C-alpha cells in the first residue's frame, strides 16, 4: 500500500464562490489503481470538488494536485465522463465521432489521423459498442449513450477516470450492463465516481468520500447501518447545513 503512487492529493482545501465556504478543510488522497466513490447530499459540494479536480476552478486555500502537479496542467491525463443529461439528443453526430473527441488534443487541423481512429475504435470496442460506431447519437439508448461517453473518456488514454453521476437517468437493465463495464475498468485504472447509486459504491468503490461541505472518508464495505444513516440522514443533513452552514455536518457518518 505504502509504495503506491498517489494520484490525487488534497490538503486542507477550501473553496467558495461568494462569501460562505462551499468546501472547507478538505483533505484526502487516492493512491494509484484505487477507486473512490464520492457521495453526499445535493448542494454539499460534490460538483464543486469535481470542477476543482478538472482544473476548471482554482482552490481558494490549501492545495489539490493530480499526479503531483496542479490540476489544470494534467487535464490531458484525465478521462472525464459528464452527466449524460446535458447533451442535445438531436445533435447530428455518430458514436465514433463523439469518441474521437477524446483525441482532440492530438489534432491540429483537418482530419484525425489513422492512429486516432484506431484508438477511438478500440475504446468503443472496450465498452461493447464496436458495431455501433456509425450509429447516430439520437438512435442510441440511454445506456448506450452513457457508454459512448465512457468510450470518449477512454479514447483520451487516461490515467484517471472521473465520472459524474453515471447512472442518473438510466434504467435498471442498462445500469447492470454499465456496472459490468465499470467493474472491468476498475482493474485497469484509478477511478473517481460521483454517485448516489449504492450499487456503484459497493461494486466499484474501494472507499467512499462523503462530501457535505467538509469531507469524511469511509472504507468499504459499508455496513448496512452506515448506508442507512448516510441516506436516511440526508434530509436532516440538508436541514442542518442550512441552519449552520459554516460547519460541515457528518453526524450521519460513522468513523472507521
Amino acid at each position, binding site marked *: 500500500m505504502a509504495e503506491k503512487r498517489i494520484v490525487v492529493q488534497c490538503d486542507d482545501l477550501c473553496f467558495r464562490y461568494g462569501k460562505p465556504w462551499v468546501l472547507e478543510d478538505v483533505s484526502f488522497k487516492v493512491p494509484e489503481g484505487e477507486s473512490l466513490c464520492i457521495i453526499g447530499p445535493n448542494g454539499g459540494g460534490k460538483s464543486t470538488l469535481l470542477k476543482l479536480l478538472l482544473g*476548471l476552478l482554482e482552490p481558494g486555500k490549501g492545495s489539490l494536485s493530480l499526479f503531483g502537479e496542479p490540476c489544470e496542467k494534467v487535464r490531458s491525463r484525465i478521462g472525464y465522463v459528464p452527466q449524460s443529461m446535458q447533451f442535445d439528443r438531436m445533435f*447530428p453526430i455518430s458514436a465514433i465521432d463523439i469518441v*474521437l473527441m477524446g483525441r482532440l488534443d492530438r489534432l491540429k487541423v483537418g482530419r484525425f489521423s489513422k492512429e486516432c481512429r484506431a484508438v477511438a475504435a478500440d475504446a468503443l470496442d472496450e465498452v461493447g459498442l464496436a458495431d455501433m460506431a456509425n450509429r447516430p447519437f439520437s438512435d442510441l439508448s440511454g445506456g448506450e449513450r452513457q457508454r459512448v461517453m465512457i468510450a470518449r473518456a477512454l479514447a483520451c488514454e487516461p490515467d484517471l477516470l472521473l465520472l459524474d453521476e453515471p447512472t442518473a437517468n438510466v434504467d435498471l437493465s442498462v445500469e447492470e450492463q454499465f456496472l459490468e463495464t465499470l467493474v472491468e475498468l476498475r482493474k485497469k485504472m484509478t477511478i473517481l465516481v460521483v454517485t448516489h447509486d449504492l450499487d456503484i459504491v459497493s461494486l466499484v468503490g474501494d472507499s467512499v468520500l462523503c462530501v457535505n461541505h467538509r469531507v469524511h472518508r469511509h472504507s468499504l464495505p459499508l455496513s448496512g447501518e452506515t448506508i442507512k444513516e448516510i441516506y436516511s440522514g440526508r434530509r436532516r443533513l440538508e436541514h442542518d447545513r442550512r441552519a449552520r452552514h459554516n460547519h460541515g455536518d457528518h453526524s450521519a457518518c460513522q468513523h472507521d
Partner: protein
Amino acid sequence: MEIIPRASMTEFLHAIQEVSFIRYALLAGIVSSLTFGVVGTFVVTRRIGYIAAAIAHSILGGIGASIYFSRVYELAWLTPMVGAVVAALLSAAVIGWVSLRTSEREDTIIGAIWAFGMATGLLFMHYAPGKAVNLESYIFGDILLTSRSDVIATVVLAAIILTLVGLFYHKLVAVCFDEEFARLRGISSNLYYLLLLAITAISMVLLVRVAGIILSLALLVLPAATASRFSRQMWVVMLMALGLALVYNAGGLAVSFAIDTPTGPFIVFVASVVYGLSFLLKGKR
C-alpha cells in the same frame, strides 16, 4: 424587378450568356450557397439562429455608415460590402463577448444589437448626401444588383469561410456538442465559439446580398433544418443543405426570371414550403 422582361426558361439560359448582371447573380448565388449549407448546419445544431438574425439586421448599420462616410469623405474603397463585413464581425464579437464574459442575458443583447443596427443604418442613410439610398434592395435583397466586384468579394468571403471550416471542422463540432469537454482536451472553447460566430457573420453578409436582411435567416436555416430531418450525420446534413441551397438559389433565379417574380421572396417561399413538407413527412420521432 421591372428591368427584367417576361421571358421563358430558354431565354433565361440565353440571358446568362448575354446579360452580365444575370450571370453575376447566378454566380454569386451558387458560390454563396456552398457556405449556406455548411454554416447553416452549425447555426441550426448550435441553436444560434437568433444571433444570426441579429447580425443580419446589424448589417444595415454597416451599409448605412459606409454609404455616409464614402460620400462625405469620398472614399471609393468604402463600399457597402466593406461596411457590411465590418458591422457583421463587430456585432458577432459584441454578442460573443457579452455572452461569454458578462452576466447580461444573451437574448437581451441580441435584441439590442438587432435594433441598434437598423437604427444607425437608417440614420446614416437619412443624412448621407447625394441621391436617396435604395433601402428596399438591402432589406428585401436584390441579387440582380450584383456587380462584378460583388462576385469577386463573394468568392473571396466564401473561400475564407470554407477554408476555416475545413481546417477546424472537428474542433467546431466538438465545441458545439460539448464545450466543456472540448476545453478539457485543451481546445480554447471560447475562441472557437467566437470563430463560429465570425463565420456566421460573414455568411450573413453573403445572404443579405442574395435575400436581403429580413429574408436572409430563412435561407441560412431552412436548408439545414430540412436536411437534418433526413440525416443524423453532421457532414451529410451539410452536403444535403448545400445541395438544397444550390437548387433554391439557381432554380429560384431561373424561375423568378421566367415568371417575373421577385427572386428573394420566391426562393424563401419555396424553401419554407419544402421545409414544411419535410416536417410533415419526417417530423415525428
